[in-house]
């Protein structure tokens, strides 16, 4: 019978032995060495039945198919745009994948110019990490106004919260529109004072993401900052 060598939900370092015995299966962020399962990165251990994985807490964004991200246009090609996606690799948005139909001889800067931020989907990532983006689908658009902040992409799930509970709490408290990209780029639009509150709140979440009781702390923080009473919506 196998044996766990670390507690569930603790921080482990690379090369740390997580479990002994062939009963356990190594998943993401772990590997097997003889009968031991070893962590291959800094992260939180997650034991789910027989499957052990480590959820990384830091690192650059790695593009994944199906992610909705916020990207910056950095260059224009004959057939599309090059996007900076805050990762080691850049993405390409082809003319065919743009929101509207674009004629062959059209001036592409009229649609998305260099320096523009857009919300886009990643539709394909190759083994060489060539990334294809698409603007087809609801919600994909160019971002006008507002401000952009960058956060650690591994904290994005905590910023969004269960079924979007955290981000909608911030939205309700500050009347700002907020879009969180999976790559850790966040767009905030509202009155300048409120935008600053949102930035502060997100930075707080980023710092305290791994400490339990986060929602409650953020609620009191927002109440103090905005002088408003906030009701946390129960998520089923």
């Amino acid at each position, binding site marked *: 019978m196998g044996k766990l060598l670390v507690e569930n939900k603790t921080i482990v370092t690379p090369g740390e032995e997580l479990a002994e015995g062939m009963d356990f299966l190594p998943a993401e962020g772990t590997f097997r060495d003889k009968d031991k399962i*070893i962590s291959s990165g800094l992260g939180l251990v997650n034991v789910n039945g027989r499957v052990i994985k480590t959820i990384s807490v830091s690192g650059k964004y790695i593009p994944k198919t199906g992610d909705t991200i916020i990207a910056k246009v950095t260059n224009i090609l004959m057939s599309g745009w090059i996007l900076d996606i805050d990762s080691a690799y850049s993405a390409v948005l082809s003319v065919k994948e743009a929101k509207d139909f674009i004629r062959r001889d059209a001036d592409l800067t009229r649609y998305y110019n260099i320096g523009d931020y857009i919300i886009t989907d990643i539709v394909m990532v190759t083994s060489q990490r060539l990334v294809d983006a698409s603007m087809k689908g609801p919600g994909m658009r160019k971002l006008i106004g507002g401000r952009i902040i960058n956060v650690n992409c591994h904290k994005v799930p905590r910023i969004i919260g269960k079924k979007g509970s955290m981000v909608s709490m911030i939205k309700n408290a500050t009347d700002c529109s907020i879009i969180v990209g999976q790559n850790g780029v966040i767009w905030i639009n509202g009155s300048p004072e409120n935008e600053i509150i949102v930035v502060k709140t997100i930075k707080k979440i980023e710092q305290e993401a791994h400490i339990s009781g986060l929602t409650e702390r953020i609620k009191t923080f927002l109440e103090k900052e905005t002088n408003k009473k906030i009701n946390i919506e129960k998520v089923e």
Partner: protein
Amino acid sequence: MGYTKRNDGRKFDETRPIEAKAGIIKRADGSAYFKMGKTVAYAAVYGPREIHPKFLQNPTKGKLRCYYNMMPFSSVGDRVRPGANRRAKEIAMVTEKAILPVIDLSKFPNSVIDVFIELPQTDAGTRCAGICAASIALADAGILMSDMVAAVSIGRVDDKLVVDLDYSEESYEGGTVADIPMAVISRTGEISLLQMDGNLSREDLKKAVEMAKKACSKIDKIQRDALKNKYEVKK
């Protein structure tokens, strides 16, 4: 006569007091501070990011690139000219090779992981401190690693084998000195760096390797604690 007592009163197999911290440079993707006695090393990791110049791109795997730099005011002697010199380039190369076995670069084709090691204060053992700091910083940057690397220098001062030489021992005048910086991959006990300055008998070298492994397992624990402390719940 022999070397009977160490200059700073340590035991022969004792390292200097070590202090390590992770995540101290906010703008870097990963960073670390590693202090060993009076030797201080900072390491900052950036990446994986796009590689420049572009001809260095490798479509099958990523690249690890290390820089080593002693600050102008870091040593007791003359001002150290900053930037790459022959020694700095060599140390950067051996650092790279000491760390490379534990890093999985296959996930980052065409990209580079940059490691910058800066030494604001030096008192011998800088490449070891640099490797220790770089190892913490790489883990902090979320790079996939199969293990961590700890490094220490073992030396022979006159007739005694000693762990972690400081500058006064390296420049000991009462007899000959040999200095062997070693890097040990913690879990497997493999050696990824072994250089030697001076000469040593075969038996002594074997003993020195054992001493390094013992000292490195202690350093390894300090490195891991530094990483865990960063995420510790503060009450």
